[in-house]
């Protein structure tokens, strides 16, 4: 069963930007990577840090604002030192002007990477 929850309007987040959205106590980082939307858990798996305060680098990596470790946004995979534990991802749906998330499902890229 999928539970679609509204995240934000497409126009609210420009390509290359990341923002924080809190849904029922769960902090999410929502990304616009070249027009495609993604969502991950907002807290870095290494130290306490809000990834949405970081920067999208090298196309589709999020660099943590604290120790500059990186994760692959579509799959949540830990990519760069000091991150070693992968990041929880969430499945995102785009519907016309709106972006939704399913908090019960991983992103497709994450599932296929397993």
């Amino acid at each position, binding site marked *: 069963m999928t539970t679609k929850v509204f995240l934000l309007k497409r126009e609210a987040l420009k390509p290359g930007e990341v923002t924080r959205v809190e849904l029922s106590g769960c902090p999410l980082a929502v990304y616009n990577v070249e027009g495609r939307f993604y969502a991950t858990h907002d807290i870095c798996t*290494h*130290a*306490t*840090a809000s990834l949405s*305060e970081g*920067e999208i680098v090298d196309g589709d990596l999020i*660099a943590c*604002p*604290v*120790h*500059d470790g990186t994760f692959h946004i579509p799959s949540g995979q830990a990519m760069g030192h*000091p991150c070693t534990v992968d990041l929880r991802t969430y499945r995102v749906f785009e519907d016309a002007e709106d972006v939704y998330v399913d908090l019960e499902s991983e992103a497709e890229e994450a599932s296929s990477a397993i």
Partner: protein
Amino acid sequence: MTDHTCTGDCTPTLQRTRASDPLPGLDKLVDFETGKMSRRLYWDHAIYEQELEKIFARSWLFLAHDSQLPNPGDYLTTYMAEDNVIVVRQKDGSVKAFLNTCPHRGNKLTFADGGNTRNFICNYHGWSFGIDGALRGMAGQELFIASGMDKSRHGMHEVAQVASYKGLIFGNMDPNAPSLDEYLGDFRYYLDVMLDMDGQGTEFIGGSVKSVINCNWKVPTENFIGDIYHALWTHDSAAHAMLGGPVSEVYKNPDSYHVNFNGHGWEFNTDIVGNAATLGDKEIRKYLYSIQPQVAKRLGEVRSRMIGAISSASVFPNMSFLPGQNTFRVWQPRGPHKIELHTWTIVNKSAPQEIKDRWRKGTMMTFSPSGVFEMDDGENFEFSTRTNAGFVTRQQDMYMGLGLGSQLTDTDLPGNVFRNQVNEANHRAFYRRWMDLMQARDWSEVPRRDVPKVKDGDLVYPMAKESV
């Protein structure tokens, strides 16, 4: 602990010590009427400690050239005297500077000379700071928060003031210091000779060459502020090598000057290419001759003839440069008897690449550790310092009275102007400023000796019309 009571200048990141008392008997160390100066200025540790506080911690000090930090996140590390600082370009294009030390347990934050970064992370416990200096986080952050720590009060300590003049970025540790424009004052009129020949600005090319000289920092500063006199003798053999003859008899040139303002000084004649000629490269001379008429339209005849002339200059307290040779340098103090010399090559952005390359090689050949002129100077600088290890030796006063009574009052040139570049007027002005600062508890006690004539608007020039 009374000296650590808050002075009102404290920030969340730094508790400033109240200014210490000026050293007693300072006024006996220099006699400006006769040109007598005590050797203790080159040797005493007590004087040096006061200089760190009263000169360097409240003067405008050169940090970087704009061209070294083109993009947001670009940074370099340098020194403000013995304080190591990070200078970093912000996302909004402004420049900030911070002490290069972690406010947690004091380790050095970055060990790099420069680069591009999103943050500075301490090697010790992994505390992380943004390029804006804010503490962004650390491992085990929740433990610090549980301890009652307020993250916003533990950022990197920011240099109180950062400002630039035509590409040169300066910092000042004192929030109460006058503005950079006021500090440079009328000296900006002369700085434009080097920084604003054509409205297109300057740049540093190549890297920085660093070396150590065992001398007091004031010896080379005063050498560049106004001592062409030494060139006739010190550099005789180097001049024969580079020019095929002796240094010209500059003391016979009636059209030559010492000028100074607020302790900054420039000695020069108006021969256009005299300094440049010592690089032994006629293409550089041709370039200077080719741009001089356009510079004359922009800056007037006198300044256009200074662009590569026999000349040298220092900005108080420890930045110097040579027009024509295009070496640009800071004499970083390392105790009273040692300096770390940082040098760069400065050129007009608009100059052809081939000319820039020739200048880079020219500065290597003349004013680098193996350069023919720098080697001549280094030994003099070292022994002018070292002799004063002698307890009795340092009780013999030195002399800097050359050119007493040579001030010109009927001149259009701004600043204090003196006839004949073979002079020690700028030395005296430098030590006058030094004495004023050493005797002042804060900037409000520093006498305003020099009255500015130059207005900010005088330093903006119409662009030269392109010839059709």
